[in-house]
């Protein structure tokens, strides 16, 4: 296990390193840097060059990369070029917001999606199954941001209510915090509930079709026992794997939901950083996204191994 972990970690680190290089190159290939934006239509060349020098943009790209990498290895992601704040602080604040959205969405998706999936699986082929499946496929097909937009309008016109404007962390006021996050989580959640329940249903169905389950049913073993002993156990592992997948998906979906609902999360930080060509923030935020996705994958993998000892280190 320990050896496997080390190997996995090393591979992940290498991937993160390569990803950072890719991002670093990509953002610098584009015309129009932060200095151009700061100068607007007014600035002169001397002033622009002075600023480029200040940001280190006059250096060759590989030198810029090395300098950045050195700092990253010391845990320093640099200072934002447009905000003047340490990138770690900015990402820290933003990441907490995104993490909260992600975890709450995951919670909602699990609480609603898993029972729905189990119900649909047990009643395979019956009207209830059809109804749940229809809901699932609609939820999967509807664009997340569009659902959010429609929710916003519906809630605003029906109840004359809209979320508070400024994000409040749950530690300051849980009520306000939830009021702000309710709509975003609902719109992200619809998709994930659908995905979850669809996935769980498949696993329940396939478990029900297993030979030993059929035998057990035929032998008249109580349904409760079959359910807890055979089905739930069979479904648990895939559910955990799927949680990881969903978390990563939420991490992506959050970009657009955060910009729709004006939440100061990682996704929006990323978008503004692209717009303003704030390279340190962009590089830092992407690095965190990549690392977060890797950590989730790793955790899923480990959980998988812990629950099911049959999966041996390859």
């Amino acid at each position: 296990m320990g050896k496997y972990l080390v190997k996995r970690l090393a591979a992940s680190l290498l991937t993160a390193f390569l990803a950072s290089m890719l991002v670093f190159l990509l953002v610098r290939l584009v015309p129009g840097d932060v200095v151009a934006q700061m100068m607007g239509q007014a600035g002169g060349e001397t002033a622009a060059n002075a600023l480029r020098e200040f940001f280190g943009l006059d250096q060759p790209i590989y030198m810029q990369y090395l300098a950045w990498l050195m700092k990253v290895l010391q845990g320093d992601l640099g200072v934002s070029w447009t905000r003047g704040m340490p990138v770690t602080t900015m990402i820290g604040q933003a990441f907490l917001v995104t993490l909260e959205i992600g975890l709450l969405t995951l919670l909602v998706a699990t609480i609603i999606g898993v029972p729905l999936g189990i119900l649909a699986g047990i009643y395979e082929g019956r009207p209830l199954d059809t109804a749940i499946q229809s809901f699932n496929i609609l939820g999967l097909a509807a664009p997340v941001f569009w659902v959010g937009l429609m929710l916003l309008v519906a809630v605003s016109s029906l109840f004359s209510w809209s979320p508070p404007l400024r994000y409040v962390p749950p530690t300051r006021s849980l009520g306000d915090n939830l009021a702000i996050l309710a709509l975003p989580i609902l719109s992200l959640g619809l998709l994930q509930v659908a995905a979850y329940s669809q996935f769980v249903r498949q696993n329940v169905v396939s478990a029900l079709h297993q030979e030993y389950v059929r035998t057990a049913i035929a032998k008249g073993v109580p349904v409760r026992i079959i359910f807890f002993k055979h089905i739930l156990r069979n479904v648990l592992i895939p559910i955990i794997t799927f949680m990881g997948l969903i978390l990563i998906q939420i991490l992506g979906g959050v970009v657009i939901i955060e910009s729709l609902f004006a939440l100061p999360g990682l996704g929006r930080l990323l978008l503004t950083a692209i717009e303003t060509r704030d390279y340190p923030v962009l590089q830092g935020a992407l690095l965190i996204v990549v690392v977060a996705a890797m950590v989730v994958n790793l955790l899923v993998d480990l959980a998988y191994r812990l629950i099911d000892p049959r999966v041996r280190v390859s």
Partner: protein
Amino acid sequence: MLCALPALPAFAQSEGLYGPVAENAVRGGRLNMGLLVEPPGLDPFHQAADARIRITVLVYQGLFYESPSGEAVPLLAESYEVSDDNLVYTIKLRQGVKFHNGAEMTAEDVAYSYNYIRNPENGSPGAGDFSMISDIKAVDPTTVEITLSEPNASLPMTLGNKYGAVVPAGYFDDEAAKNLMNSESVGTGPFKLVEFVPNSHIVLDRNEDYWEEGAPYLDGIDFAILPNSASMLVALRNQRVDLVALTRPQDVQQVQQVEGLEIERWPSLGQASVDLGSETKPLDDVRVRQAISLAVDKEEVMKASIGDFGQVLGTIPAGLQERWGLPLDQVPMQGPDIEAAKKLLEEAGLGNGFTLTLTTINGYDWMDPAAVTLREQLAKIGVTVDIQRVDLGVWINNFRSSQMGFTFNDWASQPDPNLLFYRHFHKKPEGADFRNWNNDEASALLDEGRATSNPEERREIYNKFQTILAETVPTIMLFSPDHITVRSQRVQNYVQHPTGWYYGLARAYLSD
């Protein structure tokens, strides 16, 4: 002998500053303002973006205030005198002004701040505006002397609040200071910065030591940053914000029916225009540019872009028209006149039409509908328009390297014709001549206008300039979108400045 320009009496001055003084203002309360565009930073020295200026005018102050009518009203200055040769300005400073850090403002600070910004090595986009200054020195703690290399009537306006500000001497000695102005407040303005959380909010508190008696009225302002107008309008409707300056006038329609919201329209100094860079064939031929100008129906473009919430322009933004503009009925080459346009194209040997790429900028909402409309209009004279949308950074790069081609533009200046025209249209190297217009006659007029201080003569000169501008078409000014503010009824006495900057917040108050 010095010819003295009398300072305005103190009372009139404070009335002119920022907006009308309220008769029976209520003190206290915090105002929630919605921001549709997040400022890319709050540094008045190194950031050119308009979204930055809108807010920093409340925190930082220059020597003069640019009044809506185009006067430079003394702000941190108290009065000034100009030498006979119009080259030396002796500026008396206001006394008892304190920085947000508690230190007293002196002539040293003023000289330091303006010397910092005018040195291009320090990387300020505003440096170019100050290039006519050859020396700034503190004569005594309350007097600053500014020497020019040549006469320039718009110096006081240049010392306004767009670029730079008075900050404590030596502030930028620390290299890191270039990055600190988003978290620190070192100005002299009516409000001080408390917090700026990117993508979320900006908090300003009242400056308790502010030098104007009784101002400002508000305890503070909370700016909520909401980047899309849909969410903003929902928030307005549900009273989550008290005040918003809309970036798209047509959004008014969406809140017009809502009770308790007051909608106001204000003239603006901004302009939506089409630029025609002469480096792009066949725009190098003046007849082609004239044909395009004649083919454009500005009214229709405006209607498609912003509805009726703006004013169609001749050769100068709406806010400057009355004082400096060429009368609209005297502007040559105005369309739509398809026949005349076609004739010009035929003369230019392009009777069979040609293809042009029109550049629009990502994020400027009016440009998309305007582009679609312009495309249809130019099709009538056989010009095929391809639309290309680019990111702001890319666009600015093209613009600054004078490779703009055929593009929409959206810009504004302080209310002064020299600051508006000189840099954009004077030939190189004195001006930037972004459109490769290279017009000697117009450049000579710009030089003359800058050196002339008599308002009547100045107007005459700029009228001549505008005639040439309209005749040879380096740009087609389309319309000025009105500033539209939507406020809840409890917001009182907010006046929107024509620049779009939020000066009015220094005079606004909340009724109970």
